[in-house]
């Protein structure tokens, strides 16, 4: 059995935020199909470095699908063709010999390109800072089981908390909307008693920040859910809409 393939990569190269950028073509031979997509990029970069060329800059950290750093728009889809996976968990066996693979950075006003495939996702951090927290007094660690939580709410909060903030929802959305991200981050807290006291201000502040960061509105197209590596449901957007309505009526 032949375990290696040859591919043509078409990669977005951009020297800096101010550079206009352009696509560049790279041919790679003998790529082991058991490599992850990022390992394939490592091979590419080793080659470029040995030739004295600038390696392709891309974000990555955990390489085990939990940090959300590895943003790449592969063949027209965030994190490539496989459902529910980050780029680091995508393997070359998903591609065929002779495939042309186009790799672009996330494209959104809220995520400016820093270099090549690396974008600045700090807008998400600022949205979290605006309200994605609960305030607790310091002192002894509270007993984890002291506050009873309805199992259904706990489960929902847990699914929302799976969001790793990778930005695939924004990248896939035709309006570059961050509503799925904000929905998940609001709901994971607001569904729980601990999130109760700051409920109204949280949703308002996070949404205000979301608009300030230049993300678009939600047309309920659903590409976000389809592309989310953690398969966060668009139910979170419906809940976010309700949560905002609630905040206009009830102050906590």
């Amino acid at each position: 059995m032949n375990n290696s393939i040859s591919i043509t990569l078409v990669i977005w190269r951009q020297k800096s935020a101010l550079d206009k950028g352009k696509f560049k073509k790279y041919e790679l031979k003998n790529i082991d199909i058991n490599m992850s997509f990022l390992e394939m990029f490592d091979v590419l970069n080793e080659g470029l470095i040995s030739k004295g060329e600038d390696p392709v800059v891309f974000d990555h950290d955990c390489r085990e699908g939990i940090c959300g750093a590895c943003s790449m728009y592969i063949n027209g889809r965030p994190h490539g063709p496989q459902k529910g996976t980050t780029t680091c968990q995508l393997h070359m066996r998903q591609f065929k010999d002779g495939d042309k693979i186009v790799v672009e950075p996330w494209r959104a006003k809220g995520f400016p390109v820093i270099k090549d495939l690396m974008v600045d996702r700090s807008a998400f951090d600022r949205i979290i800072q605006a309200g994605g927290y609960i305030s607790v007094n310091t002192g002894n660690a509270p007993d984890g089981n002291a506050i009873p939580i309805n199992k259904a709410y706990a489960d929902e909060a847990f699914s929302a908390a799976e969001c790793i903030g990778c930005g695939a929802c924004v990248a896939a959305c035709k309006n570059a909307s961050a509503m799925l991200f904000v929905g998940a981050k609001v709901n994971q807290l607001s569904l729980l008693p601990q999130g109760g006291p700051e409920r109204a201000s949280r949703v308002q502040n996070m949404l205000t920040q979301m608009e300030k960061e230049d993300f678009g509105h939600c047309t309920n197209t659903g590409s976000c859910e389809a592309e989310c590596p953690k398969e966060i449901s668009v139910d979170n957007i419906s809940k976010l809409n309700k949560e905002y309505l609630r905040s206009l009526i009830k102050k906590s």
Partner: protein
Amino acid sequence: MKYYIINKYLAALSGLFLILFLTGHLAGNLQLLIPESSGAQQQFNDYAAFMSSNPVVKILSITTYVSILLHVVVTVALSIDSKRKRGVGYSVSRSPSNSISSRYMGVLGTVILAFIIIHLSDFWYKAKFEGETDVYSMVVNKFQNIEYVAIYVVAMLAIFFHTLHGFSSSFQSLGLVGSKTRRYIKICGMIYSLLIPLLFMLIPIYLFLNLHKT
């Protein structure tokens, strides 16, 4: 643009009102399917006279005009705003979505708006400002014209696709959908879109083929 969500509430509420309006409008129009020999002309003209004099209908019709204006203003503003949010576009883009219509709401809406203008200037304007009282003959004669029938068919197809997404989308925008209800709302939206716009579409075809004369 500030407060997307409030704008979406308005888009959804006005859209849902228009969905209700269309249902009522269709109920009235279905009287055009009555054979001419069974007194369709008299019945339809009486109905038209009632609609233009009843005070409750007056309030409903004002609500309809306000809804259309509000819907157009809000959705056009949202659509223009979101055009800027991508910045540099992708060279390849093929993410799946849960409805194709949702990508073309603006285009579909523009077709509907153009239609509303044609429709109002041809029937409503003539009845209201030119004192036409035989609305039945006016409608029936209009639809002897194939181009006119074609305009209606295209417009109803646009409404079909618009409500196919819009129906369920408005429940989502108002925060009224959950994991358990999503499927049912989607099915209701499909039934609505298949029933209302497509029945509307049959009327001009029916009149064109002179089926009311049989």
